[in-house]
């Protein structure tokens, strides 16, 4: 006896139904994604490549220091030298749009899950599902709903990359010292204020780790999205596979690696107090502290002087 559940048919029917009933919605979404992609792509693709590299290197210097700036410059020059600059810019734009959307969706979800156990219980299996389903499988319905181009690439990437953002945000907020949250409550802070002033700032390292994960997963998915005509480095990789072109495959593949390392180091440095920006900031803070301290000291000195005058006056008074 053979058991065959027609699950595939059901899912196909479901997506057909979605496509029919909500085609307007998906078309609008598609236009939005394409518009966002074009906007970001325009920023990186319009200036000459050397200008973009100079800008990125300056940011690298501010974020992590000169060593990172030098390796960033070398990496980007490598991409230019293997003629993958345009592809890399396309992939970068795709990563930025998808990762931005994933962050915007996953952090609020993570916060909600941290504050409500029911939401957490519902989200957990969904996140497990999204993270473990083979990445290629997303592409099929994405293609059906958004047609070929960057839009299915963005939606597949965003869904695939969202899970760690939700998880790490929830974990970060849940692991904030309970006593500190209680302190907020004990002094009469509203839940919103506790979230803003205590939970999110203290969960920041974990949330930043989540954002870093989102960006890295986005990059890996963007390459796969090349298969569905999203272009970029993934497009060349896909082409190299179909043509068995080892050289092209490695050129595009190594460019992905360079892009990945640069993005990872950038996002890992946020809020870590590294690089020139951090030293500017700490110098500014030190100056401000010194100024404040000088102000108290002056006030205190004035106060003592006034006290002495009063005391002296009191001593003189009886005469």
């Amino acid at each position, binding site marked *: 006896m053979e058991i065959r559940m027609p699950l595939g048919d059901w899912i196909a029917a479901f997506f057909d139904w979605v496509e029919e009933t909500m085609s307007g919605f998906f078309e609008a979404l598609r236009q939005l994604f394409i518009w966002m992609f074009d906007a970001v792509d325009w920023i990186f693709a319009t200036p000459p490549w050397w200008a973009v590299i100079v800008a990125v290197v300056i940011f690298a210097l501010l974020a992590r220091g000169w060593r990172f700036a030098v390796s960033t410059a070398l990496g980007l020059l490598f991409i230019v030298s293997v003629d993958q600059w345009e592809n890399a810019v396309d992939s970068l734009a795709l990563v930025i749009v998808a990762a931005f959307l994933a962050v915007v969706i996953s952090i609020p979800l993570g916060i909600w899950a941290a504050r409500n156990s029911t939401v957490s219980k519902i989200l957990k299996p969904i996140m497990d599902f999204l993270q473990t389903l083979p990445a290629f499988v997303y592409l099929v319905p994405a293609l059906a709903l958004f047609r070929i181009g960057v839009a299915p690439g963005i939606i597949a990437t965003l869904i695939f990359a969202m899970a760690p953002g939700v998880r790490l945000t929830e974990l970060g907020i849940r692991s904030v010292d309970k006593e500190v949250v*209680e*302190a907020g409550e*004990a002094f*009469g802070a509203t839940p919103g204020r506790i979230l803003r002033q205590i939970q999110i*700032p203290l969960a920041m390292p974990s949330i930043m780790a989540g954002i870093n994960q989102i960006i890295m997963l986005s990059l890996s998915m963007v390459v796969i999205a090349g298969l569905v005509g999203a272009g970029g480095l993934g497009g060349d990789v896909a082409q190299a596979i179909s043509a068995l072109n080892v050289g092209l495959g490695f050129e595009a593949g190594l460019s992905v690696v360079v892009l990945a390392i640069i993005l990872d180091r950038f996002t890992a440095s946020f809020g870590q107090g590294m690089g020139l920006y951090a030293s500017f900031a700490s110098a500014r803070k030190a100056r401000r502290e010194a100024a404040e301290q000088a102000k108290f000291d002056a006030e205190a000195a004035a106060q003592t002087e006034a006290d002495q005058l009063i005391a002296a006056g009191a001593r003189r008074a009886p005469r």
Partner: protein
Amino acid sequence: MRAEGLFKVFGRGGSQAVEQLRKGTARTDLADGITAAVIDASFEVKKGEIFVVMGLSGSGKSTLIRMLNGLHPATAGSVTIGDDSITDVSASKLRDIRRHRISMVFQHFALLPHRTVIDNVAYGLEIQGMGKDERIARARKVTEIVGLAGWEEKHPSELSGGMQQRVGLARALAADTDVLLMDEAFSALDPLIRREMQDQLLELQETLGKTIVFITHDLNEAMYIGDRIAVMRDGRIVQIGAPEDILTNPANDYVEQFVQDVDRTKVLTAESVMRKPRAVIHENDGPTGALSMMRDEQLSAAYVIKRDRTIVGWVRDRDVLDLVRKGEKSIRSAIQADHGAVDKDTSLADLLIPSLEAALPLAVKDDRDRLVGVIPRVTLLATLGGEPEAAAQATHRPDPLPTEVVDRALDNAGKENA
């Protein structure tokens, strides 16, 4: 502040469990998954009093203090601060009470690590909605009071534990509430720092007169800072009383066992161990009267007081005897002024050396220098031993034989041997 019939039951079916507990079911006999943390706690904290709740871990004291400001909603019972009820109020009303009437100091300080000391201290004021300049100015004053002037712009991680808790204390004081809850506030500190903080708290309390509920597992700490102490065990309050009451009249074996290890010399004061003086001499008495009284009472010396019981000094029987022989009418010339009387609030630990140095039972005076009692050395020893009554059974040490009798006996024995 008043708490009446407070219950806190964790787990489903809390109100049923409360009914069962009221009927006398033991807390271990409740259904699985239900924990009764606080059972039928009632007490009143007077204005300006330090009320200590003392118990071992798991006795429910931390839950109890969190019910006083609604961090844990009570399963049954009521808490009121002045006219405001904490139980059965809306969330926004509760927040309002927490902002203006009750603040809290936490065991592990619970400071906001990303804010400077001054911003931490001003936190309560910020939530009250006070403008930036005003709250910083007030926070600065409080920071100075707790002895952290000069540290305002540092972050908590740059401070030692004791200093961090000063910030915690300053934050609670800055909010300027009548009631201060302190949850094991000094337990995470080193013993020396802890002692320093206790002293500072008592010193501050002299001027501030807050109503303080202090939680601790350390009985010595409870005895040291508490005006009254509630001892908790397994969720129930087993005794409420002044430190000396708890020490001298423990309500049950548990409390008795608990107080066994307390350093009595630090808790008990001169007043609590002193006895009525056997006899005193008035400064206007004549030498003859004084001497005959000392003979009747078998005293070799006695304290001299004025008519209003103010202590003047002391006299020795031989000096008085000299006066009688000389035919003087007044004992004044024989009075020695160095009576060495101790204050009635002096702790026993500080009585030992004066007692050693005094020629007669240590005199105890009140704040107007009046003689209120004496402490014989046997009484002091008996109290330190934990049984003040034993002093009455003290065996009298026989006087040594007169020297001439012994000499004669020895002489005779020598002759016989020769």
